[in-house]
């Protein structure tokens, strides 16, 4: 710690740059999140090599087999099979690809849109800001899932549609955060100082404002990824998202619902996978919040 010659703050914590990694090791739930999410990403990437079967191959002779360890189970199908004889394990693994791809892409799109809109609204102000705020209110007035259903039906359900719809409706939260932060940053002396020294708008925005938005946006974006994954699975569950035979947890659960009493494995395994994925993303998000915004932890 450096000894300050003038007015040391009373109980200011020593300026110690504790590495993020060490902090992670001290936070069991954050660590759990990182490990599980890492595992899910790993499985998703390696799906073609580790899944025992082609997830889209039907085998009507092996329809509705229970998990391997139960009576009537087949050791080739660890988690059993569905009505069309798809291997539940393989489909569960492959679904991770779909969900993560959609979750990350939709949020990336929403962040891009929202931050851009938010920076303009906060920095330019005036009419533009009013318009953006009203647009945000309008967007919020229509429950996103309802809009997503309608849009998905309108444009035709496909992964691209879902990314566009979730990304296109998700901008509001980022725009609001960005606008608020830009407004308060604009009033901070260091931004005024830069302007008074002759810095142009571009430099002010990119050098003095945007770097401060990284951590708040990162925290929210992480949590929003989990919401996007849940939204995608809801759509697929309703039959308006990922269409069969492409594997997705949501549509697997939608199919499983009809066999809830007779073939529970159709609902339980993909459900656990989905929940673990969302949970791990949330845990990582909470951990980021603890690290970057300790006020709320």
């Amino acid at each position, binding site marked *: 710690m450096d000894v300050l010659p003038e007015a040391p703050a009373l109980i200011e914590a020593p300026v110690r740059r504790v590495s993020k990694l060490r902090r992670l090791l001290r936070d069991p739930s954050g660590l759990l999140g990182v490990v599980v999410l890492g595992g899910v990403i790993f499985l998703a990437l390696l799906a073609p090599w580790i899944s025992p079967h082609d997830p889209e191959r039907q085998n009507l002779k092996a329809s509705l087999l229970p998990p391997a360890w139960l009576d009537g189970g087949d050791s080739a199908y660890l988690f059993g099979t569905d009505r069309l004889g798809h291997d539940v394990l393989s489909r569960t693994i492959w679904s991770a690809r779909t969900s993560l791809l959609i979750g990350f892409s939709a949020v990336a799109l929403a962040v891009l849109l929202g931050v851009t809109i938010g920076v303009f609204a906060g920095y330019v102000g005036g009419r533009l800001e009013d318009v953006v705020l009203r647009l945000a*209110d309008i967007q919020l*007035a229509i*429950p996103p*899932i*309802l809009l997503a259903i*309608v849009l998905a039906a309108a444009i035709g359900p496909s992964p691209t549609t879902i990314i566009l719809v979730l990304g296109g409706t998700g901008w509001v939260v980022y725009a609001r955060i960005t606008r608020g932060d830009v407004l308060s940053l604009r009033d901070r002396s260091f931004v005024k100082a830069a302007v008074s020294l002759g810095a142009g708008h571009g430099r002010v925005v990119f050098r003095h404002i945007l770097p401060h938005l990284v951590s708040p946006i990162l925290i929210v974006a992480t949590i929003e990824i989990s919401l996007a994954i849940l939204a995608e699975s809801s759509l697929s*569950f309703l039959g308006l998202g990922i269409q069969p035979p492409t594997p997705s947890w949501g549509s697997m659960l939608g199919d499983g619902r009809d066999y809830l009493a007779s073939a529970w494995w159709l609902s339980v395994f993909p459900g656990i996978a*989905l929940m673990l994925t969302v949970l791990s993303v949330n845990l990582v998000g909470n951990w980021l919040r603890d690290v970057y915004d300790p006020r709320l932890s």
Partner: protein
Amino acid sequence: MPPMARYILRRLGHAVLVVFGVSIIVFLVMHLAGGSPLSVLLPPEASEAERRQYEALLGLDQPLYVQYWDFASQAVRGDFGQSIWYGRPAAGLVLERLQATAELAVSGLGLAVLVALPLGVLAAVYRNRTVDHAIGIFVVLGQSVPIFWLGMLLVLQFSVNWPLFPTSGRDSALSFVLPALTLAVYSMARLTRLTRAGMLEVLNQDHLRTARAKGMPERVVIFRHGVRNALIPFVTYLGLEFGGLLGGAVVVETVFSWPGVGRLATEAIFNRDYPLVQAVVFIVALVFVAVNLLVDLLYPALDPRIRLASAS
């Protein structure tokens, strides 16, 4: 103009503006959807001439703004056209089902508030202690479980394995329990988190220290001075959460075959019943705007800074 009157007028103005915006979005989305119900009404082998005739009949040959004007002027009168599938006015169908959804959403929200408010306050007061950590685990689990899956598990356990509640339908008070609970879980978790954060902020405010300094017992400090102030942002969250519940209802109603607007919407989409879809989306948005307007109007009662002009 007195500050209250100006406040109310401004809120009303915003609400009208939002409804107007929603109407444009609903209209455009339907238009994008190929808006024309012709594909449903006409057999695929219909001739070009027949197609034109129908378009003219339905006003689909008019410019976009004329079509919007027709749509909007009818919507203002509560007329969203005939449902193609049911052959009845779409608005009437939605309103019939709205009650079932409202029952679900309101009780879900009520349940969420009853749990979230005490848990959130508790977590904030005992910040970083065991209670707080336990509540934190509940929150993150609640925010992570897919509600349709939760619904299915509840059915599997409490309707199939132990037949306590019906699996679906809306026939008795019992049939109400599982869907309301399912719908409430996510909101419970989120509102708990928001209450905790809001409460932590209030607990850090100077006037709480003043309350302690004047000897108020901890109970008074936490409730009369802390919770009372934390309620102000909480009410806003409630309004917004209501939107989330309406969205969640779409999924929950499907799981439990609950005859509400959510299921009506999914059915309408599968049936390509566009007037009905339009009516559902618009009316649900209207309900959301109305609820949030109510919240805005409740605000002055909670916060004298809005109710009364300030010193300067």
